[in-house]
């Protein structure tokens, strides 16, 4: 009976996490210009499809297969749904749940590509990221790899999913260079406003709800109703993140910045992802609140360094992911630290903090370097990762797909 309940619960979690792709579609298309909306929505769907196939073929095997070498496991390739020993739920459902996570990492990575990458870039990077980048980090932390052996705490993926995706996004933004019009010759930054803040807000809400699957679903079990506690922490951190971003934008800018509030909520969610099962409710509030402050400064930091990140993936998923991973090194309680040791504030000393820091640095570096190399080679072989200037100005809906995301009228430039 318990196995059935676990299976139903994790299936619900998988559905919620897959629905987060819908949140990302709204968030990403709303935060960018109308002329690219269809392209962004479409690439999210197709990369989810490609990521699913790659995960089925090799991803799952690399992460959860028999531990074979330092980097990956090597069994369960082309998983066909058979029951795997040692799990208290249907292995197929566990597979789907993990697949959903892998594709979220991919979608986060693509935030850094927005409004200028070729469609073919998305397709090829989907495959390579899902084979070489994500599975290695996931195997190290969740698949019995070396970081798992050190007791690295990352309950639902602040590092595995969010930081890995953000590091790939960072490599992409560096190689793709900023969008046309983002920076002036004197280095000053122009705001390129998204076309629909309602979409963005709705996207954040869908992600927020989806996060109950992401975090609470990661209990993989209904035993003792512990998932409820994880969901509570998740919600508190999100609220604190939104509130902190509101306060900091009010204080610094003199205005309550809607975009900032939305990113604050997401940053709170990302930060609590690692620690949601290891910390008390009051700590969840602090973790979320600090994430909301951090995301504000992080966004400005990247903007001023000419790193054009249209969806703010680096700040929301990267900076908050780092903070969230480190936070368990401070706040993990004795009772809740079922993995690793208690944090600094609970008598654990610096040990767990050191493990968390090692995990962040090594995983982040690995994801960044390997993504950078992949994209660099792609750039050389594909005659660039980016569409031409003319295509970028026309908008990717028309230039890449020949159709409108919206029935808008775009003036034709001509030279005849």
């Amino acid at each position, binding site marked *: 009976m318990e196995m059935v309940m676990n299976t139903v619960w994790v299936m619900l979690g998988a559905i919620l996490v897959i629905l987060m792709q819908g949140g990302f579609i709204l968030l990403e298309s709303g935060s960018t210009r109308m002329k690219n909306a269809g392209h962004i929505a479409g690439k999210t769907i197709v990369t989810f499809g490609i990521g699913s196939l790659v995960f089925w073929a090799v991803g799952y095997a690399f992460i959860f297969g028999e531990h074979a070498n330092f980097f990956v496991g090597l069994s369960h390739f082309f998983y066909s749904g058979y029951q795997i020993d040692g799990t208290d739920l249907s292995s197929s459902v566990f597979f789907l749940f993990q697949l959903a996570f892998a594709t979220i990492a991919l979608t986060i990575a693509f935030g850094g590509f927005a409004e200028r990458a070729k469609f073919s870039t998305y397709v090829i990077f989907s495959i390579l990221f899902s084979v070489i980048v994500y599975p290695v980090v996931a195997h190290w932390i969740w698949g019995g790899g070396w970081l798992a052996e050190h007791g690295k705490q990352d309950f639902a993926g602040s590092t595995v999913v969010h930081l890995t995706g953000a590091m790939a996004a960072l490599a992409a933004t560096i190689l793709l260079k900023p969008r*046309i019009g983002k920076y002036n010759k004197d280095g000053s930054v122009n705001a390129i406003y998204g076309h629909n803040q309602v979409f963005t807000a709705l996207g954040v809400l869908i992600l927020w709800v989806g996060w109950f699957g992401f975090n609470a679903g990661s209990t993989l079990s209904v035993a003792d109703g512990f998932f409820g506690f994880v969901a509570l922490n998740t919600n508190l951190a999100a609220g604190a993140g939104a509130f902190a971003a509101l306060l900091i934008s009010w204080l610094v800018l003199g205005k309550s910045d809607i975009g900032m509030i939305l990113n604050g909520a997401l940053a709170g969610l990302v930060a609590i992802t690692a620690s949601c099962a290891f910390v008390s409710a009051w700590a969840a509030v602090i973790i979320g609140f600090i994430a909301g402050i951090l995301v504000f400064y992080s966004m400005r930091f990247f903007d001023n360094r000419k790193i054009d990140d249209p969806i703010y993936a680096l700040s929301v998923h990267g900076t908050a992911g780092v903070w969230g991973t480190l936070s368990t090194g401070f706040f993990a309680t004795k009772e809740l630290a079922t993995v690793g040791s208690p944090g600094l504030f609970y008598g654990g000393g610096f040990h767990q903090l050191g493990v968390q820091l090692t995990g962040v640095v090594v995983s982040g570096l690995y994801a960044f370097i390997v993504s950078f190399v992949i994209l660099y080679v792609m750039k050389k072989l594909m*005659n660039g990762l980016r*569409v*031409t*200037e*003319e*295509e970028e*100005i026309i908008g990717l809906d028309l*230039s890449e797909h*020949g159709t409108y995301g919206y029935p808008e009228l775009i*003036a*034709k*430039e*001509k*030279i*005849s």
Partner: protein
Amino acid sequence: MQKKKLVEANGEGLNESKNSRCTVGGRVLKFLMNEHQSLVSWKNNYLFKYFSDNRSLNLFHDQVMKKAFQLSINQIGPPPCSFSWFVMGSSGRSEQGIFSDQDHGLVFEDNGEKNMLYFRHLGKELTDELYRLGYSYCEGKVMSSNILWCRSYKEWEEQINGWIEQGSWESIRNATIFFDSRNLVGNDEFIEDLKRQFLNKIVSNPKVLERFFENIRHVRNSVGLFGQIFVETKGIHQGEIDLKSMAYLPYVNAIRYLAIKEGVYETSTILRMNALSKMTRYEKDIPIYQRYFKKLLAYRLSLINERTSCQSMNYINVKNIEREKRKEIKEILHHGKRLHRFIETIAKGL
């Protein structure tokens, strides 16, 4: 004297009010209207005699535009100083089809506000006169009526320098359009001098060439993996090939880029190709592309019987083409793509 109202885009003339009084001004206007109407008739009568040959067709267009200029001068008085009325785009390159839109500009001696006002007025007059003669307005507003394209010599110097220095997509596009300019009426030294300065600027700053290459990198996919020609899938041109963007522009843009790079002053694509073919670096490849481009120009002219407007000139229906011709078009499309790959290796110094 009552205002006269334009009625038809094809230049069928003016509606004269029945109550128009027979003043001297009225007589002058009547005379000008007759002039205009006779020009319309002349153009319509003779135009179709020239479409078997690209060169004579373009010479004819030049004649029509020169007469339109004269008509405008008759209307507003003689120019107060030295000037050049120049054409750009397909007209500048002497590659107009039977139907064409307008692309022209004015440069004049810098002698204060009076001159400026005169030439702005002239620019507007010329644009409207050409429209009445059947040359549609340019969507991109590359016309003498737009102050961007109607400037004193000094302003032109500053503007061209600014375009090149700014280096944005739009400013480079404008500089590119200007590079196709050809003096039609007036002092041709203006255009020559401006082009010389333009090319000197490029020579002294080779990095700018990259921006010119970037500006033309976008080439529409024309032939698929299985050798099928990509056609329009929607709208009034469904099932048709966009000859202009898929076949014609790839050649024109690529050759213009090489002309800028190598300092070739010619404006027509064929003449640019001739000049480039004399250079060791291009003597092998350019003649091949020239052969296909000539075929394309001839093919475009051969379609004229079926065409009724400037827009439809650019489209052909695949179903109406016999097998042999289709193969030839594929070759033309394919070589347009190849030419772009060729200039890419040149641009990247490979």
